[in-house]
């Protein structure tokens, strides 16, 4: 499969930190998928110097999330790509090993990057890009206090690993250019934006038809995914020329935060359960392996 060179790989500081934490807290080695998005961007040089007029387009891949499992388990079939996230590649985290791809790394990368069904199309382009990124995470051979991790990103291209630099994106003035390529990823239900007065008769009409009710229920479900207890009616009111716009907006934001809060609590509780089970499994495994 033809493979286009990725010019830049970005990852948010938080995502990288989370990845490193996952690698260092795991009992053994881990591996997993890297998700995110890719886009072809044409940087604006903001200069009127005539020589810089040549416009080059860059293929930029941004890692936004990952999925990790212990290395002894094979990678599951990757989930289908959505409109906002696609499978960019995978990572392998192994302690105290040289920072170069291993036999397994090259075999797995080859298999991922050569499966046509996993290819995706970056934004603003017609290219078809296979998941060819590989991020290798290791630790130094000697335990050190400050330098605790090493990582290297590669793109697998033409049956060889090409080292790529990994740009860490944080919040702050020096990362302002990031906002050029910002695209919101929260999906609120699509609302009618009819310019209509507060006409009670019309509203009743919509509410009472069966199809309308069904639609409303579906929209409410979609809204519930990102906000805790915010009725769809209030959201639709935001579309009109209502007076209490700011307070309603703030209310929606609060409800969205509450939703995130609830989700993170669930994650925390399930993580504790997973950890407990992991520890139990490890004791059993040690017994089987003859280490006790």
């Amino acid at each position: 499969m033809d493979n286009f060179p990725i010019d830049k790989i970005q990852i948010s500081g938080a995502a990288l930190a989370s990845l490193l934490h996952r690698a260092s807290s795991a009992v053994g080695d881990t591996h997993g998928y890297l998700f995110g998005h890719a886009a072809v961007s044409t940087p604006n040089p903001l200069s009127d110097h005539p020589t810089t007029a040549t416009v080059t387009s860059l293929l930029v891949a941004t890692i936004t999330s990952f999925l990790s499992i212990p290395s002894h388990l094979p990678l599951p079939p990757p989930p289908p790509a959505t409109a906002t996230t696609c499978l960019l590649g995978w990572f392998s985290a192994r302690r105290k090993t040289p920072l170069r791809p291993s036999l397994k790394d090259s075999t797995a990368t080859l298999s991922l990057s050569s499966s046509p069904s996993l290819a995706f199309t970056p934004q603003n382009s017609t290219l078809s890009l296979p998941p060819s990124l590989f991020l290798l995470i290791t630790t130094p051979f000697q335990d050190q206090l400050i330098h605790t991790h090493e990582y290297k990103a590669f793109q697998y291209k033409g049956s060889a690993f090409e080292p790529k630099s990994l740009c860490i994106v944080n919040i702050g003035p020096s990362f302002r250019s990031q906002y050029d390529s910002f695209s919101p990823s929260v999906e609120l239900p699509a609302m009618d934006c009819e310019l209509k007065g507060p006409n009670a008769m019309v509203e009743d009409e919509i509410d009472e038809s069966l199809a309308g009710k069904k639609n409303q229920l579906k929209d409410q479900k979609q809204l519930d995914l990102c906000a805790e207890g915010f009725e769809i009616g209030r959201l639709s009111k935001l579309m009109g020329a209502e007076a209490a716009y700011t307070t309603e907006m703030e209310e929606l934001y609060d409800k969205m935060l509450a939703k995130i809060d609830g989700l993170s609590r669930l994650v925390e509780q399930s993580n504790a359960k997973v950890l407990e089970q992991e520890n139990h499994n490890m004791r059993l495994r040690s017994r089987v392996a003859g280490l006790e």
Partner: protein
Amino acid sequence: MGIDTVPPLITAQINYLLSHCPFSVKVEQMWSGCKNPNYLDRFTLVIPYCLDHIKWDVTFNAMYPLAAPDVIFGPEDETFQPYAGATGKSSKNILANWNSKDSSQLHSLIVELRDAYLAYQRRRIGEVDDERLKFEIDTMLAREGIEMYMSSGTDKPEEVKFAVPLLDMDFNRLVAGSTWRHPQKIYLQVTFPVGKKYSTAPPPRLKLISSSELKALFSTEDFKLPTWVDGMCTAEYLPNLEQMLNSQIKDAISSIEARRKFIQSLTPHFGRPIEADPVFCRKATFLCSSQTFTFLVHFTLSLQFPKQQPAIVLQSSQHFNSHGVPVKSPNITECPWSPRWSPSEKADRMLEFLAEEALNFKKYCNQLNQQ
């Protein structure tokens, strides 16, 4: 739990590899990749290749010792991807069907990977744009067991090394009673510079190298290589070399017999040796006495025996220096000797010589003790 434990399943794999491998593989170091650093599950294998060594890191997982290991090749071999040619899931390699209960799996994996490495080096060298090298490969590859290696680095000049096994003879059988575990071989190392354009190609660097244990029988350093004539190729060079080598090896093997006979002929005069090298007959020690003075005689017989006389060291059983070490004479290499004497004459002359030398040595010992 003791410190530094290797999980039993991993130990079994390593032990099988070390005891069954057709080439002499070594484990260089072991370390841990676990959160608990007491479980050792990764190690470096030193594998002989093309008269040199390649180092591969093998990583197991102590927490999941049932899982297949992974291998990380040397930094200069990043393009070596042995299973990349096979298509996807249909590839039938050992790693894909790893069975931790079978302790021969690591052994099979390493043998399989080394074969793949040889094919990889051969492919790389085949891609080098060098007329002479292409010709050499075409004419040489009819011989079996040739290994080759291309060294390339920014700091080193590019060159291609060949290790050509010489003489299709089984040394392990020729030397009676040898305890060699691996088959012994003599190789010619041929090194061609590549990548530069010469008007006349310089001759390759040639070196005769034997497997290390063979040094007890034959010294490749003492062998004078025939000269390389300009415009020659390796296939032309080899027959003459092998002929010369063959006759010298025969001499070396008959030299063992000469040494054995010499040691046996000493027995009537000195009694049976208290210690002797039974395979190569390079060393023998006798216990002797001259009146009340008892001493040991160490004979060291060179590979050139009987052309070269034995070296003798006397060691007193009664005199010790201030550190409590027995007093030894300097190495005596000047004794009456002729290769043409019969074994019994050699032994007679040796007895006469030693009877005299024993008195000198006794004097020497007494003087040392009086000081």
